[in-house]
């Protein structure tokens, strides 16, 4: 019987991919292939019918030849991977070896005549819907598009020990330093004039940290109050970032500021005044005092 494969290094990714696989499966069973014991365990509990835990590689990328070899033998109908950088490399290399297509950064995936997928093109300007009929189907799935399945009776985990002849050797793996990098940040918390005191910027910093983002500010906060370096101010005359999530604290929403962030995917405002222009320019506005709302939000995010 054909299988759908999920290939993942991180447990969170594996769980989402398993949920995607479940929604696509006809009479197929679902297998998870991973090089991480933790991920194997999570996959076994969250929807995989079979888990293959690979050992012997130095990096997740080490298993590409072995996974391809197995795919040639077992002919899975589809292979799903995450859209993180490692997975995208693995997926592209496997697709080349398997002489298959690959849909990158899928935001929607359905089973029709073949596999129907949607992805953004031209920097998010447009959405392309495509159908793949040939097998195997490969896709890297954008994160956050599926809710992980609830934990169930764990499937069996089979260990597969392989010898890897890596042409690429890892010398070091170190965490990122926390230098402000507004233009690349996926999440930005922006402090505006509504932040009363310089030490209150800590609130913005804490919120940014909780979301894995960076802190920016409006022009007056940088240029008049000098609370933050000039390179941190956002607006038509300053930085014009395009984060996934842009959260404003005490920003009234003047056009000169908002047009600098028009490419943000989602704009959230925390604002006292329900008549402020920001309410027109944001996706979601929480009407309230930022000194009450932000601590609540931090608590909610941590829970």
């Amino acid at each position, binding site marked *: 019987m054909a299988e759908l494969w999920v290939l993942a290094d991180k447990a969170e990714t594996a769980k989402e991919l398993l949920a995607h696989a479940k929604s696509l499966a006809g009479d197929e069973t679902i297998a998870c292939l991973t090089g991480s014991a933790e991920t194997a365990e999570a996959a076994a509990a969250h929807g995989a019918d079979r888990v293959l835990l690979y050992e012997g590689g130095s990096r997740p990328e080490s298993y590409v030849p072995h996974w391809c070899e197995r795919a040639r033998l077992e002919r899975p109908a589809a292979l799903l991977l995450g859209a993180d950088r490692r997975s995208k490399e693995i997926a592209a290399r496997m697709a080349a070896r398997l002489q298959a297509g690959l849909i990158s950064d899928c935001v929607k995936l359905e089973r029709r005549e073949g596999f129907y997928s949607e992805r953004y093109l031209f920097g998010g300007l447009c959405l392309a819907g495509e159908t793949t009929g040939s097998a195997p189907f490969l896709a890297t799935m954008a994160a956050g598009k599926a809710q992980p399945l609830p934990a169930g009776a764990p499937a069996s985990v089979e260990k597969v020990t392989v010898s890897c002849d890596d042409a690429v050797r890892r010398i070091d793996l170190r965490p990122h330093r926390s230098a402000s990098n507004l233009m690349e940040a996926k999440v930005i918390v922006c402090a505006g004039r509504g932040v009363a005191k310089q030490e209150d910027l800590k609130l913005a910093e804490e919120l940014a940290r909780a979301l894995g983002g960076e802190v920016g500010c409006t*022009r007056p906060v940088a*240029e008049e109050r000098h609370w933050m370096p000039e390179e941190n101010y956002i607006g*038509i*005359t300053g930085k014009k970032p395009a984060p996934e999530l842009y959260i404003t604290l005490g920003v009234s929403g003047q*056009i*000169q500021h*908002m*047009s600098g962030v028009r490419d943000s995917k989602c704009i959230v405002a925390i604002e006292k005044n329900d008549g402020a*222009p920001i309410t027109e320019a944001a996706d979601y506005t929480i009407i309230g005092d930022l000194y009450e709302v932000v601590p609540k939000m931090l608590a909610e995010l941590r829970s």
Partner: protein
Amino acid sequence: MYDMTLTQEEQLMIQSVREFAETVIKPAAKKADETGEFPWDVINKGVELGLHALPVPEEHGGPGLSSVMTAVIAEEMSKACAGIGTTLGATGLSCYPVVIAGNEAQKKLFFDFIMGGKMGAFCLTEPNAGSDSGSVATTAVRDGDEYVLNGSKTFITNGGVASVYTVFATVDRAKGLKGLSAFIVERDRAGVAVGKEENKMGIRASNTTDVIFENVRIPADHLLGKEGDGFKIAMLTLDKSRPSVGAQAVGICQAALDACVVYVNERKQFGKPIAANQAIQFMLADMAIQTEAARWLVRRAAYLQDAGQPFSKEAAMAKTFAGDTAMKVTTDAVQIFGGYGYSRDYPIEKLMRDAKIMQIFEGTNQIQRVVIAGQLLR
């Protein structure tokens, strides 16, 4: 008749200049305007691209660009910052006397400076000789194999940052215009001094100073052309550079228009963008018409120059019209931006301050009208 189609090479050049303007000039413009400090980083980058040396001939290592291309590039740079555009353009201006009258050795001497990445300055104006070049009081006295220069120049663009100057001095004050002569003078000659820097209303990124010559001895072979050729060389130089001065003004107009088009769509009053008001629409349309008209007067004058046809009158018309238009268009832009337009925190009032010089320098718009009328009535 006018084939203005750009070659692929020319299109690539414009693409490079746009990228330079957008990514290097623009981010530096505000600070340079506020502080009046000379933005060496930006200028050096422009020099790397060759943007200070547009007229330097290919055989001397330069790009030897046409007048049309020089104008297009001047417009693009000034769209981002007219002050920085002026600095790079002024080095080009200093090259023209050498292009026009220099012999091979003089060209090598001068263009080695420029292609080596140094700035040049054109030194004509004096405290008592602005529009009236015949009143130049700086003297050049022949002494054996040398000339000895004495006098003061004022309002010299790049005066304090140039390594080499083209200097206009008289060999005989009694001869008036017929005594005027042109020389190459290196900055490091004994007796050359840079005087006070002007604290200007606009184009504040550019460096404008007095340049003082006190018993400066230069070899006689630094004389461009013959004694007495100076007036002819100066006038031809200013004619040649006039289209690009007009182009700078057009760049300012376009910057103002572009900023307004964005703003009127974003600024909401009475529940709708102000772009919905016909009063605003008509202002924008007029700004666009005038900008386009100025641009094509400039390009036509440049075209005539490239085609080897008479262009002096057309160049004067282009500079005058473009300068006046820049003043009008930027004034309207400030009006459209309202309070924000008047605020130093927004980039609009700078355009208005920068525009004013376009009616003044390289021949005031009044003297241009004298030239135009003179040609009509002769």
